[in-house]
Structures are given as structure tokens and as C-alpha cells.
């Protein structure tokens, strides 16, 4: 194992994390809601969704559209991933986050910030399995 400590990457990640924290705080303190992205997205698939939920997802989409308009290149790794793998991964992520009531934002940021033991358990579980999966795919198979 080697550890890469790229100062620029670390700064980007810390800055991005702080902005994500501000967005989470804004939704909580203005709308009174938890910024769990998978949960908010799934609500839009059924009936009875609310304006703030549609607004939040539109905001995420707008961030990506804005990046494209500003000339930010799409990540090459996305285009390099075979469609069947993206489809399988999407299906598993959708099934799992629906069943487990949350993803990296809902359990990982909001749940941890709420000091929820339930979210802590979920984070340890999905993080551990994700690391195990990458290990198996890259170093065993």
C-alpha cells in the first residue's frame, strides 16, 4: 500500500467538503430538512413530492449544467466505464440506498453530523463493502 498526499487534491476536497456542509446547513436551517440526496430523489418518483425536493434536485442538475457551460470537462473515467457496469452499479445503488434509507449525503454527512449511531453503522457498512469491492475487482479478480 502506498499513500498519495497531493496537497492540491487535499485542498480541493476540504474546500468542497466545507461547501457541501454549508449546503446541508442551508437546507436544514431554511427548509428544516435533511439533505439526503437519494431519499429526496426517490420522493420525486412517486406522488406527493414537495417543491423543495424538486428544487434541490434541480439545483444539483443545474450545477452540472453550469459546469458544462463553463467548459469544465466531463471526467474521462465516466465515459471509460462500460454501460453494463454503470447500469448494474446504478441498480445496486438505487436498491441499496432505498432499502437502507440513505447514501453518502444522508447517512455520511447529515447522519454523522446529527451524531446518529444508526447512520454511523450504515457508513461503516457501505464504506467497508465499497472498499472490499474495489479490492476484489482490482487486486483479486
Amino acid at each position: 500500500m502506498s499513500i498519495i498526499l497531493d496537497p492540491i487534491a487535499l485542498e480541493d476536497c476540504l474546500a468542497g467538503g466545507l461547501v457541501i456542509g454549508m449546503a446541508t446547513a442551508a437546507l436544514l436551517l431554511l427548509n428544516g430538512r435533511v439533505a439526503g440526496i437519494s431519499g429526496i430523489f426517490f420522493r420525486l418518483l412517486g406522488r406527493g413530492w414537495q417543491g423543495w425536493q424538486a428544487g434541490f434536485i434541480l439545483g444539483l442538475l443545474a450545477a452540472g449544467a453550469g459546469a458544462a457551460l463553463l467548459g469544465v470537462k466531463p471526467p474521462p473515467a465516466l465515459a471509460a466505464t462500460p454501460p453494463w457496469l454503470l447500469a448494474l452499479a446504478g441498480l445496486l445503488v438505487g436498491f441499496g440506498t432505498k432499502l437502507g434509507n440513505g447514501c453518502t449525503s444522508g447517512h455520511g454527512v447529515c447522519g454523522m453530523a446529527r451524531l446518529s449511531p444508526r447512520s454511523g453503522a450504515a457508513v461503516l457498512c457501505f464504506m467497508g463493502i465499497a472498499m472490499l469491492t474495489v479490492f476484489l475487482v482490482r487486486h483479486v479478480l
Partner: protein
Amino acid sequence: MRGALTGFLAGLLFGIGLLIAQMTDPARVLAFLDLAGAWNPALALVMGGGIAVALPAFAYAKRRRRTLLGEPIELPSATQIDTRLLGGAAIFGLGWGLAGIYPGPALVLAGRLAPGALLFVLMLALGSLLANRFTARAG
């Protein structure tokens, strides 16, 4: 209407945060998950930074019933750690590890109409509908 506007701004800010941290790049996410390879711990700072800012906000919100705009504050009430939670988290972890993409970045990338992200988001929706049927049957 005001709720939709603040929701939009929060979503936009969240998306900008993901873009700054480059969480939209599967290669970067997979580098964090790959402990046995060239491990890049930067992703821990994304979560850590987010938690650091959100923590005082939640501590404040827990003591209030209404937001600054007068909306009711609704926090998740579930506390049980059961097989449904851990099974769901494990399946999510498997999917995340396979492609390095999770829901937030997938939606940001879908916003720029990246074909792979549109496919991922479509399957994300399908996966949740399957989970609904699964839980309805399991009771």
C-alpha cells in the same frame, strides 16, 4: 414557492461542493476506496469538512422547532440498526465500489447530460422501485 427556491439554492451549492471536491470523477472516488493500491485519502476530507460545518447546524436545529423562515424542522426519527439498514448499506457499498459513482455526483453529471450518468440515474430510479416491491413482499 420560497421553499422551492431555497431548496434549489441548497442543491446548487451542494452540487458545486461536489464539483470542487471532484467527487464527480469516478477515478478519484475509486482511488480513495482502493486501500491496497495508491491510496488517496482526500475523500475523507470531503466528508469531514461537510460534517464539520453541518454539526453545529444540526446542534442548533435540534433545539428549535421551526427554521429561520418559520418552516417546521423535520429530522429523521429512526434509530434502530437492523438487517434492512445494514443489508441496504452493503448493497449500496457494492454498487458504489463497482463504478465509483453515488447518487449526488450522478445527478450533477446527469445535469450536463453525460450519457453514462443518465443511464446510472435511470437505473438508480429502477433500483428504488425494485426495493419498494421487495419490502412490500417481505412485509
